[in-house]
Each structure stands twice: as structure tokens, then as C-alpha cells.
């Protein structure tokens, strides 16, 4: 492991090399073990201030970053869209400059606009960590997915990963595609043609509209959440049809190889993209993903936040 980390920001997986991704995963491996200690806290980022700036709501990602920061002894402030001055008309840049004036060292940003983290990273001395920007990238989610696959299967290269669901609007799918391809996996996207356009093939993935053809060949299936509460009606006729064509039902799960991993970034819609019994079954690693997310975020905060400024 000769790679050195030199980035102050983590904006996406597209710009990372395979070596850099592996370096984060190795670092996460060391931090995962901290969670099993009697005292689950190390002083690595003592005295640093982290701001969780979530312009879009997200409880689990924010909590995961918050706990990761606590375990590294950083101080944490949470700011959500509701409480921020953005509702009073302040620009993103002004809000961020105010945070910097408070000597924040790390800014974790969730934003509905793609590119918002990049915009701030270019302007701030603080480290900027992308916690999801629009339909662009969600790098820590993809890193924890990669970590979980590697932990369970011992490798990523050569594995066949199926990503199923709303690909078009999914930042999780994009970050996963970049990461998986860089590490040598084969990726097939599955979903309604309106949500899985053939355009994606340009990235180097395969596209299929027939889930039953893909499931028997997959080593990993990653189910994306169908955001039915805000799903644009024009993309598919209804939930019933989606479940019939693409839902991982109990019957359909029988098509999977016995060692195929079932993943989901959460929160899951039981009975929509995945049946309850499948989500709680032996092949499901959904809760491992949550545990690993903490280790991966500790690694990212340590690497980006620990760089001498």
C-alpha cells in the first residue's frame, strides 16, 4: 500500500483512482476495529470542527457522519435546510463563508443541486465532503457498498453487480458505477426503460430491462429505493406494475445464486423494491452496510480532515 492521500475534499468517485479507492477501504478497515473496542473513540481529529450542512433532509447519512466525527473526537454542528439562513435568501456561498469564519475544518454537504460541493470546495479552505448532490454523486455510500462487497466476497474484480431500480435520478447508482468499474467489477443496470436509459452504456455498463435474466448471473444485487413519494408519475405507470416487473419478491429471490449478496442503501420500502423476508434473509447485508458506513466515513474524515492545511 504505497498510495498517499493528498485530497482535502471528497466530491465523487469519478475523479478517484483505483489505488485511492483501495486506500480509503484499507483505512476504513483499521477504523472499523475501533467500533469493537471498550472505548470507541480515538483522538485523531481532536480540536477539529465538523459542520454537517444538510440542505436536503437525510437522517441516516447525517447521523452516520455525526457518529464518525464523534469517534474521531471532532466537534460537530448540525445545520439543516429548515434552520439555515438559506430560507431567508442567503446564498450558498455566503452561508459557507460564514461557517468558515467560525473556523469549521470540515464541511459535510448534502445538497439538491449537482455540483454544490465542488462549488464550495473551490472556494473554501475547509475540507468539503459530498454527502449527496442532486442526481450526481454520493461517494461515501458507494465506498461503503464497495467495502461491504469486498468484506463479504474478499474481492471486487470479476464480480457481477446488478444495480436495480431508479438509475436515472440516483446519485448512489452513479457513484457505484464509477467505483465498481474502476475496481474491475462487471455492472448491469436493471429497471424500467424510462429510468435506465441506454445512455448509461457509454460509461461501460450493461443495461437490461429483464430482471429475471440478470438475477441468476449476479454476485451482488444492489436495490435502489423507489422514491414513490416524489416519483414523477410519467416514468412508470404505478407501484403495482413496478413490483411485478422489477421488485425483488420472495419468488424472484429464488433465482439468485446462494452466495449472492443483497444490498440496499436504505431506507427500504418493504414490499416495493424488496420483500420483507428477502430484506431480512441470510443473503441480505443491508445492516452490515450501515455498520461499514460508519467505518468508511471515519476513514474519509480522517484522510481529508487530517491533511495539513
Amino acid at each position, binding site marked *: 500500500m504505497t498510495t498517499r492521500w493528498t485530497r482535502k475534499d471528497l466530491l465523487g468517485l469519478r475523479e478517484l483512482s483505483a489505488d485511492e479507492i483501495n486506500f480509503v477501504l484499507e483505512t476504513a*478497515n483499521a*477504523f472499523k476495529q475501533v467500533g469493537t473496542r471498550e472505548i470507541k473513540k*480515538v*483522538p485523531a481529529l481532536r480540536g477539529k470542527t465538523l459542520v454537517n450542512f444538510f440542505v436536503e433532509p437525510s437522517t441516516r447519512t447525517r447521523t452516520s457522519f455525526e457518529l464518525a466525527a464523534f469517534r474521531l473526537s471532532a466537534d460537530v454542528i448540525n445545520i439543516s435546510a429548515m434552520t439555515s439562513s438559506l430560507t431567508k435568501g442567503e446564498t450558498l456561498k455566503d452561508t459557507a463563508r460564514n461557517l468558515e469564519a467560525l473556523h469549521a475544518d470540515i464541511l459535510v454537504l448534502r445538497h439538491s443541486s449537482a455540483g454544490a460541493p465542488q462549488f464550495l470546495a473551490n472556494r473554501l479552505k475547509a475540507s468539503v465532503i459530498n454527502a449527496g448532490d442532486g442526481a450526481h454523486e454520493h461517494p461515501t455510500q458507494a465506498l461503503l457498498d464497495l467495502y461491504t462487497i469486498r468484506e463479504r466476497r474478499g474481492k471486487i474484480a470479476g464480480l457481477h453487480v446488478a444495480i436495480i431500480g431508479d438509475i436515472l435520478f440516483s446519485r448512489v447508482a452513479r457513484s457505484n458505477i464509477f467505483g465498481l468499474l474502476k475496481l474491475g467489477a462487471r455492472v448491469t443496470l436493471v429497471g424500467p426503460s424510462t429510468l435506465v436509459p441506454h445512455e448509461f452504456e457509454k460509461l461501460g455498463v450493461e443495461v437490461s430491462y429483464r430482471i429475471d435474466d440478470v438475477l441468476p448471473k449476479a454476485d451482488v444485487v444492489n436495490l435502489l429505493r423507489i422514491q414513490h413519494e416524489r416519483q414523477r408519475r410519467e416514468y412508470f405507470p404505478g407501484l403495482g406494475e413496478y413490483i411485478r416487473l422489477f421488485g425483488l419478491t420472495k419468488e424472484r429471490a429464488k433465482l439468485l445464486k446462494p452466495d449472492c449478496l443483497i444490498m440496499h442503501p436504505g431506507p427500504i420500502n418493504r414490499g416495493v423494491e424488496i420483500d420483507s423476508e428477502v430484506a431480512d434473509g441470510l443473503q441480505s447485508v443491508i445492516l452490515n452496510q450501515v455498520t461499514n458506513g460508519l467505518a468508511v466515513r471515519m476513514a474519509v474524515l480522517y484522510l481529508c480532515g*487530517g491533511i*495539513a*492545511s
Partner: protein
Amino acid sequence: MKGTKQTASAAVPVLDAEAIRRALRRIAHEVIEGNPQLEKVVLAGIPSRGVEIARRIGAFIREIENIDVETGVIDVAMHRDDVGTRAELPVVRASKLPLPLEERTVIIVDDVLYTGRTVRAAMDAISSFGRPARIQLAVLVDRGHRELPIRADYVGKNLPTATREQIQVRLQETDNEPDAVWLERE
């Protein structure tokens, strides 16, 4: 041991492979004498050379007493107090210690003792796993210049140095070079 160390500055050999072997064997004897209950001892190396030195001391103890002493690994990177002030971030590794630590004697093992800051970080790391009965320290080389009130219990070689000098340890297993300790002058 000639021609293996390539530096622009002058490097003086201080210990050769045989001297290192004798030093570690003597430390093994001292650990045995100082610890009547060897089964409670853990030799915990600081990566990467400390881990190899701990393994070798353990092997000597087995040779002398026919007892397998437990070994472990202590990561100090995430316990250092200078993160963010160093140009290069130390690589973190997973620690491995036999648990629980209560009633055990943990012997921290490292190649060179210098300021003592690494040892302080190692003691912090150990405390996060539990509360051992004792913590001791074994080093191959003590080069002086402590910045903290720390001393070694077992020393392979005391080597007074100037701060501008450097001690380079090379071990076959970690560096793929013949065992040797060099003193480098600028």
C-alpha cells in the same frame, strides 16, 4: 552488510544481523526473568518493524522456555497528537490485542525509541482496549532525546545520537534488506 544502504549522506553501520540477533535474544531472557507468569505477557508491536521484532522476541522465548507468548499489533497513527500538522498523514492500521487486557502485562515493542511520542500514543491506544496490569516497553535501539517522561524496560542497544543524525533500521522481513542498524549523518 555492504552496499545495501544507498543514501547520499554518510551511513555508519551500528548493528549487523548477528548483533541484532544477540540483542533480541538478550531481551527475551530479560522478559522471561522479569515475568514469572509468561502466559500473562503480550508482546505488542508497533507497525511495521515493531511487529516483526515482537515476533522474533516471541520466537526466542519459545526457544528458551518452550512457551508461546501472545503477540499483538498496536496502531498508533490514529492516536497521534500531530495529525494535521504533518505533511504526510500516517497510514492507519487495525490494532490486534488479545482481550480482555485486565491482569495482563502488555510489552510495547518498537524498533527505535526517540522522542517518546509514539510510545505515548501506543499507551493511549492500549487503554482504549482495557486496563492491563502493567505496560512495559522494549526497543531495539534507544537513541535518546526524549520529549516525554518515558523510558524503556528492555533496550537492545543504547545509542547516543545528535538530533540531526538519523537511525535507520532494516529488517529482512519488513524491508527486504539484510538485518542492520545504520547511523546516518547529514
